[in-house]
């Protein structure tokens, strides 16, 4: 994996799998939930991302099931995938921390004071 920032969809897919293995449609609904409905993955985008993640060995096939006559393939996060996700989360967290602390110190009046307050 390079040092390049991860795409949001990829980040959310890995996050969805961090809690346990899931099948394709499960990932889509979970990603929508994690992002509060903001990111609605389409099937094509999901499988392109999964293909890349499998190639990079960040994600692996866990098991297969037949439900209502349809094939469900479950994916799980690999140890390498967990490492990459943790590194990306740490990177994002550092950015978020820097942004919030500077906003707090800045003279600009925020339209949403709730973002600058709190425990960040």
């Amino acid at each position: 994996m390079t040092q390049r920032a991860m795409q949001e969809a990829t980040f959310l897919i890995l996050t969805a799998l961090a809690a346990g293995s899931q099948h394709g449609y499960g990932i889509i609904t979970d990603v929508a939930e994690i992002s509060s409905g903001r990111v609605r993955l389409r099937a094509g985008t999901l499988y392109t991302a999964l293909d890349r993640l499998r190639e990079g060995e960040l994600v692996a096939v866990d098991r297969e099931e037949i439900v209502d006559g349809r094939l469900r393939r479950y994916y799980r996060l690999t140890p390498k995938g967990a490492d990459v996700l943790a590194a990306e989360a740490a990177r994002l967290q550092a950015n978020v921390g820097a942004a919030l602390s500077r906003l707090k110190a800045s003279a600009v009046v925020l339209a949403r004071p709730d973002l600058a307050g709190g425990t960040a």
Partner: protein
Amino acid sequence: MTESAGLERGYRRLLGAYPLSFRREQEEEMLAVLMAGASPGQCWPGLAEAADVIRSGLGMRLRRAGLPPGSLGWADALMVFSLAVPLLVVAVGLLDVALPYPLPRVSEVGFRDPYAPREFGGLSLLHVPSFDIAVGGQVLIAVVVLLGLRRVALAVVAAAAAGFWIAAANNAGIPEPMWVLGAAALPLEALALIVVPSGRRDRWLLRWREGVGLLLAAGAVQVLTLMSDARSPFAWPTIVLQSTATSAHFKILPQPGIEGYVAATLVLAAAVAGLAVTLKISRFVLLLVVLCYPVVAQLVASVRYEHADLMDFFRAGNLAVLWLPPLLLLAGIMIHAYTRLRERVVRQPGSA
């Protein structure tokens, strides 16, 4: 139920945008996801959903077509190459034997030469010892490589090289492109054998697609051979493109010129490259082009400089034109493949 059957049919049609290798493994799975995401009573894929499936499918086709990052890595391509080199030389040799073309009679050419050959290629080649050694040596190399005996293969390559040079030096019976190709094949084969990891994967890697590439390359060599002889009925594209008589041997007939070869080679290269992308064999085909490069260089030179022979060993410039570009390219590819392989071995000590 009929609604969902129509929807399923629609989605299946859209999934046709994906490459076969993907569909074989994941079509049913992705179909299930698409069906699960459809709203109740929906009987036709949504526009945005359809666009996403088509865009992703075509994107995956491009990605798996050997464009970066390809499905067939350099190490795999080199492994196929080590088997393809002898197969290509044998294929060209067999084409020479199987597809002779009769040369025009004396009256048609306009001058008398009682010693001129009656045909180019044909069964008579089998009576030429150097031809038999060249083709037979490559058959032996192919068998040893197939058995996975790489060290033995290297020894056979060395022996075949020695035999080939001795036979060729004492006998001018090998057709020229075959002679250049044979000389090109042995060092390239040796280099590929040195770098590829041991194992017997070539057999499984060499699928029908690579076979198509191999046959196309052998055909390209054959086409270049036929075009190189102005007496051949196949020489017209090069003659039409450039009709200056430069050969000391056949002044009566217009000779093909260098521009003709360049144009014809570009057309061939474009056709092969197009097929390579469609059939996902771009890296492999690039290596085949490397193998065929000396043939093209020799043919261009023989037309440009009145039968100049680039195989003349005592001219450093000739050798550089013949061997330097392919050897440099191959060396670069091998260093790249070797470092990638070592990375893979370090990362997965057990499975590599």
